[in-house]
């Protein structure tokens, strides 16, 4: 198990001339699952993208093992740091195994063909995601949940120590959401992969996260273990939602039960 330090120092970031993140300092716990939560448009996705070098911060820096990720060779960085974007594009007619194989790019040199290690990594990723039977199928034939498993398998084939995921469960049925999060937990437990993701569902976040970062209006407002930080006050603060926080009967993690205008019980 390899440990890394991964920090942001005073990052300021956004799109075009609009600053979304302001002076965010955080340190990602190594070999754990961290989840970034926050309301729509609060900057959580921008934070993830800035950490995964998709957006260059306008101020501050992102440091991997003390070195700025923007000063590292892209391919070298890609061996340590992977990202599954929210909506990657499927090339027309590509097979599952081929797509997963593209995750091997940072490990391959230009002129050389595939090595045994490449095949092993792809096979392992396919098996871990339970998609071996689809290996020769076209992506277009798969369901949403299966597709998402293929994309995660591609990120797995990249064999990075740190994996970022931008809302990996969006558009999936609840069954598949749980399945994907279980698989990511498998990955974390088996290889010690540091996982950082943005998730919409606060209850699933509380269940699966070892560590939570709460973002509000471009700033980090709370961080810590779910059981320590998820309170009705925090939820009210960042989502503007009145709620009760009870104990999840299954996982013994905080469970947010929303109130509404028609359902208010003190």
């Amino acid at each position: 198990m390899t440990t890394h330090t991964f920090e942001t120092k005073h990052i300021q970031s956004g799109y075009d001339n609009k600053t979304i993140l302001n002076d965010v300092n955080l340190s990602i716990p190594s070999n754990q699952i961290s989840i970034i939560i926050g309301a729509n448009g609060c900057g959580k996705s921008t934070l993830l993208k800035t950490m995964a070098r998709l957006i260059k911060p306008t101020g501050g820096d992102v440091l991997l093992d003390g070195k700025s990720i923007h000063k590292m060779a892209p391919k070298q960085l890609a061996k340590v740091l992977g990202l599954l974007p929210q909506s990657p594009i499927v090339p027309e007619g590509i097979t599952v195994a081929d797509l997963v194989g593209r995750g091997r790019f940072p490990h391959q040199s230009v002129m050389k063909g595939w090595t045994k290690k490449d095949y092993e990594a792809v096979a392992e990723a396919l098996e871990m995601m339970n998609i071996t039977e689809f290996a020769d199928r076209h992506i277009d034939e798969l369901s949403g949940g299966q597709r998402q498993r293929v994309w995660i398998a591609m990120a797995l084939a990249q064999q990075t120590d740190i994996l970022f995921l931008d809302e990996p469960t969006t558009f999936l049925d609840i069954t598949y959401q749980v399945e994907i999060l279980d698989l990511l937990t498998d990955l974390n437990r088996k290889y010690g992969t540091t996982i950082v993701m943005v998730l919409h569902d606060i209850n699933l976040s509380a269940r699966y996260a070892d560590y939570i970062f709460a973002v509000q209006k471009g700033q980090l407002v709370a961080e810590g273990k779910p059981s320590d930080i998820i309170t009705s006050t925090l939820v009210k603060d960042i989502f503007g939602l009145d709620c009760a926080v009870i104990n999840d009967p299954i996982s013994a993690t905080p469970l947010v039960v929303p109130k509404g205008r028609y359902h208010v019980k003190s």
Partner: protein
Amino acid sequence: MMNETMNKIIKARKKRRNRYVGITIILAIITIVLCCTMMILGNTIYPVADVIDVLLGETIPGASFAINEIRLPRTVAGLFAGFAFGAGGYIFQTMLRNPLANPNVIGITTGSSAAAVFCIIVLHTSSTVVSLAAVVGGLVTVAIIYGLSKGTSFSIGRLILIGIGIQAMLNAFISYLMLIGKTNDLPNALRWLSGSLNGAELEMTYPLIIAVVIVTPVLIYFAKQLEMLELGEQAATSLGVNTNKTRVILMISAVLIIALATATTGPIAFIAFLAGPIAQRVVGVGFSNILPAGLIGVILVLGGDLIGQFAFETRYPVGVITGIIGAPYLIYLLIRINRKGDI
């Protein structure tokens, strides 16, 4: 279990590799056959032995002139221009992930033509300057289309629509130049308007040959990066591709060979548009299809030229033939894309 999976992947990859190599070889053979046919057929049909003798430097009255001065330049021009259009078009289509995003449709070839015609009619420059202007014209057109389509967020649909608009403007500009041009400049300028291998001269093809020879290895070197770009900007970046650098290098390389091909044969209709999708169809996806696309470009140009020369009573330039093949495909594609709601 693990080994079983590995074998499955290895087998599938081998199968596709074999298919890729096999079909590329077949395409290369067809290309060679077409080149030979181009050398043999004409007003007089010369036997293969004569063609070889002439090419080796022997002088055969009649045959020497026809082969060295007419058929060889014609074949060479078609060979390299076809490859340039095919490979360059494929690069654009793959990089921008849309078959419509290619030099024919978004006006890059028209940009080259406009710059060249301007040099011929208004500035009266030498042919070297004209070729250079064509390259610059192509690059500037790309830069304008790219800049305008960037806006707040880059959209390929917008790029294509802006490209079509720019092309219309450039065509109007060319028409205006032709109106004000002097009569003796017009034949020279006309060459830039429709693709033809007629009147090709060997010296004129040298810049194109040099460019293709230099650029092709660059394209093949970046083929893997191009495959990653297909997955989208974000996925490619996280896989370690320097997306901006890759895009700029690929775009300049593709525009360079396309512009020089346009300088040599004129914009042969639809080759850059057709070659990529045909290559994907016959070879399949999974590997980068730059070479097959280039070869299909050659086959379309040489095949189209042979049909234009010999299939009808009147001789037609190759651009007319490829236009007849390409236009229906463009319409088909527009209908299909419209159904999918992609643009």
